[in-house]
């Protein structure tokens, strides 16, 4: 029962890795996941301009976004272009 977390751009530095595996939190919601992360990481990914993609689709960053085993959750800071 786990999630794959993907950190893009500068969030990679905050998380210390481009990808991490996290245990599925209880309850299985976004807010519980953020609570289970190291505070510096949780703070970095909670910034107002960070978008969220769940299994490759942009989803609203709401506290009760439900998560499931095997989900891929990507944290997307503002893009900085080609």
């Amino acid at each position: 029962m786990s999630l794959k977390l993907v950190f893009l751009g500068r969030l990679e530095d905050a998380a210390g890795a481009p990808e991490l595996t996290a245990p599925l939190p209880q309850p299985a919601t976004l807010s519980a996941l953020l609570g289970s992360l190291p505070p510096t990481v949780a703070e970095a990914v909670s910034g107002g301009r960070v978008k969220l993609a769940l299994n490759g689709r942009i989803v609203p960053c709401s506290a009760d976004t439900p998560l499931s085993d095997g989900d891929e959750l990507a944290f997307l800071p503002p893009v900085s272009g080609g």
Partner: protein
Amino acid sequence: MASNPKSGTAVAADVRLVETPFDPSAELAHFTAAHPSAGGIVSFLGQVRAGDAVEALELKHYGPLTLPGMRGLAASALGRWDLLGLLIVHRSGIMNPGEPIVLVAAAARHRRDAFAAADFAMDHLKSESWFWKRERVGGAWRWIEPRPDDYADLARWDMPGPV
């Protein structure tokens, strides 16, 4: 795939995300040869500037979003202007000074359509595509934040900004 408003035939965009260096001259020659009925072909080539302090540039993308987003952008351009062809080739990975980053080319019967579509595609690639950029200066990598200019460029098209 979009319908050409004038001919009614389907025009396909050639949209690629590549991990290794590409040859923009060869790409453009091939694109031009494929569109002999185009009166005008406009291209934009973006490359890593040589002669700056920047030693290398890295573009990271996110697989599930980046290429689909580029394809969506191409479809918007095809729907908006009367084009005969559209090419978008974008690098990801680590690039050295002088290496190409992005090539956009638009072929149209009339030059204003080709200019507008290439300009539009570049503004949106710069500000709305799922790429994250960092530069190596003095041996240290630093992430690049979006420039306010990018949003100003986007506003020219009366379109929403990055989602």
